[in-house]
C-alpha cells in the first residue's frame, strides 16, 4: 500500500485529546515538521509522551496544543537552557507534568507494546514519586511475597517519528542513534512517519537488516527533507542555533507565527512534486 500523503492529511489523523509519542531525544531527530503542523491545525489537549524532550515539547505547549506531558526530562540541555514555555505552563497549572524517570516511560511503553496493564520496575524505590503520582503502585510479588513497584502501561494513539529514509510502504531506516523510536513505534496504535528521503521498495530490500520499522505498522508517510530542523538529523544536519534562539527569545505571539510561517514552505514543498 502506498502510504505517502500530504503533511496536512497525515496530521489530520490526530484527534484532540489523543496521546502522542514523539521520537528523537532532546535536540536530535525530533519530528519538528509534524509538530509544527499540529500547531497549525490547532490540535488541543494532547497528552505528550517523550523520554527526554526539548524544542518539540516547548513548541506544542507554546502552541496551546497540550494537556499533559509525560517525560523524564524536558530541557534544551546546557547551551539553550530550560524549556521556558513548558515550564511556565506547568507552573501556571495550564499543563500537567507527569514526571517519570526516563526509564519508567520506557517501561510503561513496553507494557503498552505487549498489551499488559503494567510493568514491574526494579529500580523505582526510595522515591516520593511513587506516592505523588497515580501511575505508580507497589504490589506483592506472588512468587516471593516481596514488594515491587509497577508503572501503568502507556499506549499512545499515535507516534510521530522522523526517519532517514523509507519506502512508500513505510519500511523505515534510521541512521545513527535510534533513541526510543522503535519502542514508540511498537507501543503506539498508529505511526506517522516523516522522512528525509523516499527510496524505492527494491532499494529498501537491499538494506533489509537496517529497516527497524516495518511498513505494515505505519499509517502515513510524509516526505519532508529537513523535517527535524531546527533540531539535528544525525549524519545530515546540525541544529539551527539562530532559529532556536529566536524561538526562545521572541516570546510574543508574532514570534510563534513567524517561526511557523518561516518553515511552512519547507515543510510542504514536496507536496506538489512527484514524491519519488
Amino acid at each position, binding site marked *: 500500500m502506498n502510504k505517502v500523503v500530504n503533511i496536512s492529511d497525515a496530521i489530520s489523523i490526530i484527534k484532540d485529546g489523543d496521546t502522542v509519542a514523539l521520537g528523537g*531525544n*532532546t*535536540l*536530535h531527530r525530533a519530528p519538528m515538521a509534524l509538530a509544527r503542523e499540529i500547531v497549525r491545525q490547532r490540535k488541543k489537549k494532547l497528552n505528550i509522551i517523550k*523520554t*527526554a524532550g526539548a524544542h518539540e515539547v516547548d513548541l506544542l505547549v507554546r502552541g496551546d496544543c497540550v494537556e499533559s506531558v509525560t*517525560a*523524564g*526530562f*524536558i*530541557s*534544551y*540541555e*546546557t*547551551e*539553550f537552557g*530550560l*524549556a521556558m514555555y*513548558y*515550564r511556565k505552563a*506547568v*507552573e501556571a*497549572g495550564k499543563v500537567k*507534568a507527569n*514526571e*517519570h*524517570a*526516563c*526509564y*519508567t516511560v*520506557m517501561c510503561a511503553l513496553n507494557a503498552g507494546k505487549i498489551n499488559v496493564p503494567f510493568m514491574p*520496575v*526494579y*529500580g*523505582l*524505590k*526510595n*522515591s*516520593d*514519586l511513587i506516592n*505523588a503520582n497515580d501511575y505508580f503502585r507497589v504490589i506483592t510479588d506472588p512468587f516471593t511475597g516481596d514488594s515491587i513497584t509497577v508503572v501503568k502501561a502507556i499506549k499512545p494513539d499515535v507516534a510521530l517519528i522522523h526517519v532517514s529514509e523509507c519506502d512508500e510502504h513505510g519500511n523505515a531506516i534510521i541512521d*545513527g*542513534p*535510534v*533513541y*526510543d523510536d522503535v*519502542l514508540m513505534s511498537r507501543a503506539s496504535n498508529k505511526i506517522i512517519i516523516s522522512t528525509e528521503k523516499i527510496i524505492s521498495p527494491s532499494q529498501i530490500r537491499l538494506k533489509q537488516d537496517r529497516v527497524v520499522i516495518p511498513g505494515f505498522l505505519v499509517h502515513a508517510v510524509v516526505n519532508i527533507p529537513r523535517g527535524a530542523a531546527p533540531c*539535528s538529523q*544525525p*549524519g545530515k544536519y*546540525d*541544529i539551527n*542555533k539562530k532559529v532556536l534562539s529566536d524561538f526562545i527569545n521572541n516570546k510574543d505571539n508574532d514570534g510563534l507565527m513567524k517561526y511557523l510561517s518561516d518553515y511552512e514552505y519547507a515543510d510542504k514543498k514536496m507536496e506538489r512534486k512527484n514524491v519519488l
Partner: protein
Amino acid sequence: MMTQEAKNVHPADIMIVTIAKLLHDNETVFHGVSSQLPMVAILLAKKMHAKNLNYLNIPGGVDSNPRNLLSYSSAGEDIYNNGCAVFPLQEIFDLSMRGKLDVAFLSGVQFDKSGNVNASVIGDYHNPKIRLPGGAGSAVLIPTVKRALIWRTKHDARTFVDRVDFITTRGNVDRIITPLAVFKYKDNELKLEAISPLTTIDEVVKNTGFTVNTQGVRVLDYPTKEEMLLIKKIDPKGVRYKEF
C-alpha cells in the same frame, strides 16, 4: 596568595580531573543529557589510566571516539559514532537494574545531608514554584548503579539544603562533586571529603546549608600539564565550560 596555577585554572578542569580519577579501568560508565563535564572526564580517564573503561551514553555508542564534541548536547551522534557496539539507553537502564552498571553520572538541584536528591520541583509537588526539568535517570539509577557520581556546577546554600523539598530519590550516592568541594556519602550522610584548591574550608561551610564536619579534609590537586593537554585535545572548543 594566589599562585600562577590558580590564576589560570578553571574550576571545570579541576572537577574533570577529580572525576576522571574516580573512574577505574574496565568499569561500565554512563552519563546522560546535559552532562558535558562528566563526558569530558570519562574521555580523559580513557586516555589516562582507564583505557578499557566501557563508555556508555544515551545515543547508544559503546566506547565511541568523538572527533568534534557538540557544544550544546551530550546526547548526540558525536558520542555514538566510531564505537565498538550499539547499546542504547534502555539497555543501559536494564544493565543498572541487573546490578551491572558500575558508574552513572547524575545531577539534581537540591541535596541534603541524609543523601536525599531533588530533581523534581521547588515548592509543592502538585503546585510547584519551580518545575525542574526532571531527574531523567536519577530516580531509578541512583538506587541501582554500583556508584552514583553526582556533579553540580553550583555550590550554595540553596543547593545543599537542610531538607530537600521533594525526594526524587535517596541513598546510594557515592560522591557529589562541585566547583568548591567533594562530598562522600558514608554511614548515611554526606561528609566533606575534599575541597578545591581555589577555595577555603570557610567558603565551603558558608555555602553549604547543612552542618559540615571539617576534620580530615584534603585539598584536590590542580590538573597537571599533561592532564590539561589531554583535556584540551578532547575538548578544544571548551564545551566543558558551558554549564558555568
